[in-house]
C-alpha cells in the first residue's frame, strides 16, 4: 500500500515522470521536481499561494492529489518566462508594484493569466471576484487590481 507509484504527465510543456507516494499532493510533487513557485501556505485552498494549472484550469495544488495529474498537463509559474521574457502579466505586476514580500505573487499572476484569457477586459468588480480566493498578507490589493488592468491594456494593445 505504501509503495511508490510512477506517474507520467506533461510539466511546463515537456514530458515528465515522478515516483510519488499516494498521499502526496501536487505542491509536494512540484517541490520534489525542484519547482518551488507554488507554495503551500494555508493548506486549505483558501489563499491561492499554491495555484497551478492542470489541463489549463487553475487548481489549488494543496488540495490536489499528485496521483490526479497522471496523464495530464501541468503548468506552473516557472513556465511563464522560460523564453527569457517576462509575460505581460508579470511585467504589469512589477510596473504596478503589486507585491511586497512576493510570497503570494505566483498565485496572483497565474490567476490573472486565467482571468484575462477568459475575460480580456474585466471590470474592477470582476477582477475582485476572480481574485477573491487569493490572499496577500502585505495587502497590496489596490496595486494588484491595477496590475491586472495594466496587463489587460498591454495585452489588448499587443493584439491590435
Amino acid at each position, binding site marked *: 500500500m505504501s509503495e511508490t507509484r510512477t506517474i507520467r504527465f506533461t510539466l511546463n510543456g515537456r514530458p515528465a515522470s515522478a515516483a510519488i507516494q499516494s498521499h502526496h499532493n501536487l505542491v509536494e510533487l512540484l517541490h520534489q521536481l525542484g519547482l518551488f513557485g507554488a507554495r503551500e501556505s494555508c493548506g486549505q485552498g483558501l489563499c491561492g499561494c499554491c495555484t497551478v494549472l492542470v489541463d489549463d484550469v487553475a487548481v*489549488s495544488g494543496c*488540495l490536489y492529489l499528485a*496521483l*490526479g495529474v497522471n496523464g495530464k498537463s501541468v503548468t506552473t509559474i516557472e513556465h511563464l518566462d522560460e523564453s527569457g521574457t517576462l509575460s505581460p502579466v508579470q511585467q504589469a505586476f512589477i510596473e504596478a508594484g503589486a507585491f511586497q514580500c512576493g510570497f503570494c505573487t505566483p498565485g496572483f499572476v497565474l490567476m490573472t493569466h486565467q482571468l484575462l484569457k477568459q475575460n480580456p477586459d474585466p471590470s474592477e468588480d470582476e477582477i475582485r471576484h476572480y481574485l477573491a480566493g487569493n490572499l496577500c498578507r502585505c495587502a497590496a490589493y489596490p496595486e494588484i487590481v491595477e496590475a491586472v488592468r495594466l496587463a489587460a491594456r498591454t495585452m489588448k494593445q499587443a493584439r491590435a
Partner: protein
Amino acid sequence: MIPFDWVEPASLKEAVSLLDADDSTVRPISGGTALMLMMKPGFFVPSRLVSLAKIEADYSSIRAGGDGSLRVGAMTSLAELERSAAAIVNFPVMKGALQTLSNIRVRNVARVGGALAHGDPHMDLPPLFATLGARVSVVGPDGTRDIAVEDLYLGYYQTVLKNNELIAEAIVPPLNGARAAYKKITSRSADDWPALNMGVRLEMADANTIKAARVVLGAASERVTRLAQTESLLTGAIVNDGLLKRVSESAAAEARFVSDAHGSAAYKRELLRVYLPRTIKEALS
C-alpha cells in the same frame, strides 16, 4: 496524511464494485477538495480511494430539457455549472449562489456529485438544489434509485447514501414560473463558509398570492432542512409586511440551530429572522 490504496475504475459499475458497503475507509473521490480537507488533519484516513476520473467524461454533461428542467452529470465541476447557459437561463438563482461558493479554483475542481454526497451542512449546493426540488439518481450494486436532495441528509456529514452507492446525476425540475432566491450569509469574507444559507422557491397564484412554497435552511443547522411549518404559513397567503413578520418568527422558532465557528445559535436565529423576509422579497422582485 498516510499512504492509501488508489484505484481508477473505467466504468461506474466497476467503481461501485470497488467500494465496500461495510467499510467507510474506502471512499470514492471526484474533485477531492472537501475530502482533502478531511484527510490532511487526519479526520478521515482512507484505506482505499476510488478515483472517478476515468469515468468523468460519461457523467459530466449538463442538459436542458425542453420543459425547462436540467440534468447535471455528477462529475460536472461547479465552475462548469456556473458557466452553463442552460443552467443559468432556466435557473437564474444558480449564478449568484455559485459565484460566492468558495473560490474559482475550488469550483474548477469540486464536482456536483461530491458536493451533494459529502453531507457537510455548510455547503451551498445541497440547500440550493433542495430549494429547487432537485432529485439525484443513485447507482449501487443492486441498481439505481432516485432520491430527493432534501431527503439525502440525516445529520452532520451523515447521508442516506450507502458506502457503495454513487450519485450519477442530478435532475432539477422546471421552475414553471416559480420564483426562487438563495442567500448565503457569512460572518467573515463573502466567500467564506456560511453562518447561514437559505433558499426560497415560491409558486404564485397571482402577483401577491403564494400557491406553494419551499423554504430550505442550511449551515445554521446540523443538516439541510425544509421548514415545513413556515412553508404552510406561506401557502395560500397574500404577501404583505404582516405575513413576512409572522413567517420570520415561525422560521426562527421552527429551525434547530447549531453554534459553530461561524456564529452562535442565537446569532444564526437572528440572521434567519432578518434574512428570510429579504429572501422572499428578492424571490418576488
